[in-house]
C-alpha cells in the first residue's frame, strides 16, 4: 500500500465496496445465526374438534449441535419426529397429549410441581393410571424426569422417570417404544390465540449449576412455545 496514490474514483469505489461488504456481513450474521430457530410442528384440527399431540422426552437428543443434551421430540402429522419445542395448535380446542418419557428422573427443586394442574379433570394418566399428585419420593424410585409446564394456561404435568440402569434404556434420541419408557397422557384446552411459553421444572440440564442451564435455557430442548392460532 505504501506510496500508492489511488485516484479519487478508485477511492470512492473501494469505500463503496467496503460498505457493501459490511452490509453483506451483517445480513449473513442475522440470517445465518440470529434468526435460526428450531422448526415449528403444526398440529391441525381433526374432525372430532380435538387434536392429538404426540411428544417424547429423551435423555440425550442425539442430534444437532448438542447431542448429549436432554430434549423433546414432537411428532408431525406424517408421523415423523422433529427435535423441537415449538408447537402450533388450534385455538379453543381440546389437545390430547401423549408423552413418551424415556429419561431417568430425580427430585424437583420445588415439590409443589408434583401436582398435576390445568388438565381436564386435573389428572394425567401415567401408564394408564390416573394421578393428580405424583410423589417424587415414594414412586418406583426413579424420581421425576420432567414436567410439562405452561404457566399462562396453568398446566403442570410431572412425568415419572425410568430407571437409568434399565437394560433397554434409550441413550440417544429419537427413541422408540421398544425401549424403557413411561407413557403419560392428558388433555388440555388451548383457549384463545396467543404465544404461550412452556418449560420443565425438573433441573435436568446435566452439568449446569442447579441443572437449570444448557438445555433448560435453549429453545428446542427444554424451553418452548405453544403457538395457539
Amino acid at each position: 500500500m505504501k506510496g500508492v496514490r489511488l485516484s479519487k474514483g478508485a477511492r470512492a469505489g473501494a469505500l463503496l465496496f467496503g460498505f457493501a461488504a459490511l452490509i453483506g456481513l451483517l445480513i449473513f450474521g442475522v440470517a445465518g445465526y440470529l434468526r435460526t430457530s428450531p422448526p415449528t410442528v403444526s398440529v391441525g384440527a381433526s374432525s372430532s374438534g380435538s387434536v392429538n399431540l404426540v411428544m417424547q422426552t429423551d435423555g440425550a437428543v442425539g442430534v444437532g449441535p448438542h447431542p448429549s443434551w436432554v430434549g423433546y421430540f414432537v411428532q408431525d402429522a406424517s408421523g415423523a419426529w422433529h427435535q423441537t419445542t415449538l408447537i402450533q395448535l388450534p385455538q379453543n380446542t381440546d389437545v390430547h397429549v401423549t408423552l413418551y418419557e424415556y429419561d431417568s428422573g430425580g427430585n424437583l427443586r420445588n415439590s409443589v410441581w408434583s401436582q398435576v394442574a390445568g388438565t381436564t379433570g386435573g389428572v394425567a394418566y401415567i401408564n394408564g393410571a390416573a394421578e393428580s399428585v405424583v410423589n417424587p419420593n415414594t414412586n418406583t424410585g426413579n424420581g421425576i424426569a420432567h414436567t410439562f409446564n405452561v404457566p399462562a394456561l396453568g398446566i403442570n404435568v410431572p412425568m415419572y422417570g425410568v430407571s437409568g440402569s434399565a437394560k433397554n434404556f434409550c441413550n440417544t434420541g429419537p427413541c422408540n417404544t421398544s425401549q424403557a419408557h413411561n407413557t403419560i397422557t392428558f388433555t388440555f384446552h388451548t383457549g384463545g390465540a396467543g404465544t404461550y411459553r412452556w418449560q420443565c421444572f425438573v433441573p435436568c440440564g446435566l452439568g449446569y449449576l442447579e441443572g437449570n442451564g444448557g438445555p433448560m435455557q435453549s429453545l428446542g430442548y427444554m424451553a418452548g412455545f405453544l403457538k395457539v392460532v
Partner: protein
Amino acid sequence: MAIDFSQETKSGSSGASAHKSSIFQPSIITGMVGGGLGFLFGHWAGNAIAGGYQQVVGSGSNDAAIVLGYLFAVVGWFAGLGALNYPLKKMLGFEPENVEHTSDPGWGKYFRYTTDHKVVGVQYLFGMLVYFFTAGLLALAIRTELLSPVHHIWGPDTYLEIVGEHGTMMMMMMTSVVLGPFGNYVIPLMIGSKKVAFPRLEAASFWFTPISYFILLSALWQGGFQSGWTSYAPLSVQQGVGQDGYIFGFGLQGLSMICAGTNIVVTIINYRAPGMTWGRLNVMGWSMVSLGFTMILSVPVLIDGLYVLALDRTAQTSLLYGPHGGSSFLWENLFWFFGHPEVYLLAIPGFGMVAEIVPVFARKPVFGYKTAAAGMIGLAILSFFVWQHHLFQSGMNPDMRPLFMLTTELISIPTGFIYLVGMGTLWRARIRLTVPMLFMLGVYFNFLFGGVTGVYVSDVPINVTVHGSFFVMAHFHYTIMGGVIFAFFGAIYYYTPLVTGFQLSEKLGKIHFWSMIIAFNSTFLPLFAVGLLGQPRRVFEYAARLQTLNDWVSISSYVLGLSLTFFVVTWMWQIVVTRKKSVRDPWSSRSLEWHVDSYPPPAYNFETIPVVVAGPYEYADPDALPMADIVVANAGRDVARENVR
C-alpha cells in the same frame, strides 16, 4: 517534514527492512495467526486437563478448554503482532531496533503494533467506531423485538444474548472512547511532549481491544451469555461457554484500561513541557488524570471478580455459590465496586472534552478553571463510595442504604460544577455554533436529563419503583450516550482536521447533529415513562398497554441508526474520497496541539520542545501571548481566520 530526532529510533532503516519481508513482518495478520494457534493449543490443553470432569462430561462442553484457549490466544496474538520481540531481546541483553515507532507514510502502520501515540490514537478511533456500530446494531435488534409485546422476532434465548452483547460491548467500549482516540492522540500534543511515557503500554492497550472484541463477539456463536453485562452470579456460573467470552473479553478490556490509564497519568505528570504548569494544563488534561487514576484503582477489582467467576466456572470452586460457603453478594459487590466508578470514568472524559472545546467557540476562558478541575477530581473520588446504590433492593445490610443514598446524592455537587463551568463560559461569550460546539451543547442538554433522573434513582424510596426498570435504562443512556457519545462525535468533528489534515463539511455535520439529537431524545425520553409504568429491563414480553410507547421508541431508534449511518458514510467519504485540505488551526484554538508543523503532526510532534508562557484559554485577552513560541513552517493564522465565518 523529514524529521529524525534520532532520539531512540532509526525509522529510516526500519522502513527499509519492512520492504524486504512484508508478509512475515509482524502485523494484524500474523497476530491473528498467532492467536488462532494459541487458541488451538489452549483448547487442547483444556481438554487434556478437564475433559474427564463430571461437569464437563455431563454438559458436553468444556469451559476450561475455552478459557485456556482464550488465554493462549492472547499470548499468540501479541507474539504474532511482534509485541514481545523488543522486550524479549532487551531482556536477553541485545540492543534491538525500535522498529515499532514508525513514521512510514503508508497505511501499513495502522495494522501493526506501533508506538507512535498518534498512530495508536487513530487505531483506537477506528476500533472504537467498530465497537460502537456493532453494539449499536445489536441495540436495533433489541428494539426490533420490542416492537410487539407478544410477537417475537428472536428466540427469548437469542434475545438475551443480544442484550448481553450490546450492554457488555458498549460498556467496554465507552471506557476508552475518549481516552483511546483523543487522550492518546491529543494529550501529548496538548502538553507539548514529543511522546508518551510508556509507548509500549499504550500500544498494548489498543491491541487488547481487537482481540477482546472478537472474543466477546465469538460468544454469540457459542450460545452467548444470557446474563447481561452485569452477569450476576450464580446465573453467570450456570451459563454455557458463551459466558467465558464475556469473562475474557471484559477482562482484556480491563487490562487495556489499566495500561492506558497508567500511561496517560504518567505522561501528564512527567511529560509536560517547560512552563506547562498544573494551572495551565488543559481541562482535558485534568479529566484524563482523574480518569486514569479511577481506572487504575477500580479496574483491578473487576478483573478480580472475573477471575473468581472463571474459577467457579472452570474449576467448580464455589466462591459465588451459597450452599458451599460462597456468596452471590460477593460478585455483586466486586462488580459494582468497579461498575460504579466505571460509569463516572465514562462521564469524566466527556466533561473534559466539553470544557475543552466550549471556550474555543465562546472566545472566553474556562469559567472557574479550578472548579472544573475540582469537579472532575471530585467525581473521581466520590465515585468509589457509591457502588451499593445498585443494590438498594438486594437485601444488603439495610442501614447502609441511607449512607449510600447520601454519597450518591453528594456526587451531584461535582457534576453540578460542570454545569456551572459551562454556563459561566457561555455568559457574555461570542458563541460560534460550529458542529463541534453543537455537539458539546448537546452534551449539556442530554446530560441534564440523565442528571436529574439520577436523583430519582438514588433516592431509596423511589428506587423501589424504578430499580431494574426502563427508567434506569433511560437514565444511564442519557448520561452515557447523551453525554460521552455526543462528546465523542463532537471531538471527531473537532479533531478530524488535525488527525487527517482534511476539513469536514459544516452542513453535513449539522444534518448529522440535528438528526442525532432529535432521534436520541425521541428514543430515550419516552423510556422514562415506560419504566415508571412498570416495564422491567431485559424483557422480551411486556404489557400490551405499553406497546405504543415502545413502538415510538423503536422507530426513533431506527432514525437514530440512520443518523449514525449518515455520519459514517459522509465522514468516511470526506476523509477518503473528497479530501478537502484543512487550513492551519481551523478553529482558532490557542491550545498547543493545533500549532504543530503539519496536519497530521510529524512523527515526534514538535521540532523542539515548546516553552509554555501562557494558558490555553486566554481568548478574551486581546494582548495574550500565544501559549508557546512555536516555529512553524507556514504560519498562517490569517488564512485560518478567513475560513471561519
